[in-house]
């Protein structure tokens, strides 16, 4: 295990994440994608499927899936034993028998089996080598299977990344993570809102772009402060770097989930739209990306040589 991976593991051992239910993995847009791509399955691609939740944390999403799809076989892995202990406790208390939790490092793992669907939600961007992590996931995919990723967005998190850098410099001599959390709380609650205002992820998507409300919420959640402001390793992506990582892993973009195709709902001028429509597909995605400036991405990737 490399040094950065060890640091991230220790961070999540001290602050298991997430501390409560939230529906990142199994939000409505992903539910719709899995329904639209169910093939011959009755309701969803997950019906009767072999599913991997790679980086399950405290397992709330894996448990939710296991409950919704009793005939699916769910494997959930994480680096942190502390998070896995909570995940197992949660699944046992709910009487779930179709979910198995295992400790694994996504950079090195070989689970010796393949999956119809792999979810890696909010995890790849914390690996010391995300491209290698994606190649590992790709090796665990059945032919025709799908990898769903949720990744931080470079353009939408720019101001947050600047605040993270500010905190890194300000707190470089502070060793205890708990103490760093306290300083971060003090800065965020007393600093000039116009200077500090930024987007960060919270449990409820409806709060995400409301600074006052999301700030009030996160100030009471030390594990979220660590995850969003003090993380040892956050690598942000844009559509170009996502497509490049997919290429390296032998995967291609099947669907940019939750984003409508084209830009005609955002740009009305016919001459501009005509120019956009004339671009190659990859350039259209890049233009769309630069126009929306997403805070995060949900993408579905499939193997390149699907039948």
């Amino acid at each position, binding site marked *: 295990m490399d040094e950065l991976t060890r640091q991230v593991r220790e961070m999540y051992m001290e602050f298991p994440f997430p501390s409560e239910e939230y529906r990142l993995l*199994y939000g*409505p847009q992903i*539910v*719709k994608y899995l*329904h639209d791509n169910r093939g011959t399955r009755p*309701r969803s691609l997950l019906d009767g499927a072999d599913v991997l939740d790679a980086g399950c944390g405290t397992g709330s999403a894996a448990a939710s899936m296991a409950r*919704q799809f009793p005939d699916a076989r769910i494997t959930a892995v994480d680096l942190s034993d502390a998070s896995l202990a909570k995940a197992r406790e949660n699944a046992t208390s709910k009487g779930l028998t179709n979910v198995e939790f295992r400790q694994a490092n996504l950079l090195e793992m070989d689970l010796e089996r393949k999956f119809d669907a792999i979810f890696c939600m909010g995890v790849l961007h914390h690996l010391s080598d995300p491209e290698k992590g994606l190649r590992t996931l790709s090796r665990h995919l059945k032919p025709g299977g799908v990898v769903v990723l949720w990744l931080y967005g470079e353009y939408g998190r720019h101001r947050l990344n600047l605040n993270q850098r500010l905190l890194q410099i300000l707190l470089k001599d502070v060793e205890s993570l708990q103490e760093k959390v306290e300083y971060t709380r003090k800065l965020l609650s007393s600093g000039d809102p116009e200077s500090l205002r930024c987007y960060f992820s919270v449990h409820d*998507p409806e709060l995400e772009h409301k600074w006052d409300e999301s700030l009030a919420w996160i100030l009471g959640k030390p594990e979220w402060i660590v995850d969003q402001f003090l993380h040892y390793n956050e690598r942000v992506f844009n559509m170009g770097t996502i497509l490049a990582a997919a290429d390296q892993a032998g995967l291609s973009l099947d669907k940019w989930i*939750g984003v*409508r195709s084209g830009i005609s709902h955002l740009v009305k001028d016919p001459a501009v739209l005509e120019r956009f429509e004339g671009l190659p597909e990859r350039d259209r995605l890049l233009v769309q990306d630069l126009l929306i400036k997403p805070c995060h991405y949900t993408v579905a990737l499939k193997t390149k040589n699907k039948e």
Partner: protein
Amino acid sequence: MAVKDEIRSFLETNFGAKEIDDQKSLMESGTIDSMGIIELIDFMETTYGIKVEDDEVVEANFGSVAKMDAYLAGKKNG
């Protein structure tokens, strides 16, 4: 029938919901499960002749009866 009444009637018929609070989260109250969103999208598209775009499939539009009512009003006016 008002749109809110039609939505309530759909929820009662298809999910066995009773005494629905228009403001309350349909997921958190257990009225619908995650897959229920698919039936709601289908109901809206077929009943009101709208196209639910991928970026509109969010709880801000589908989370409660009141949110669905506001979303449909916006679609009709848009």
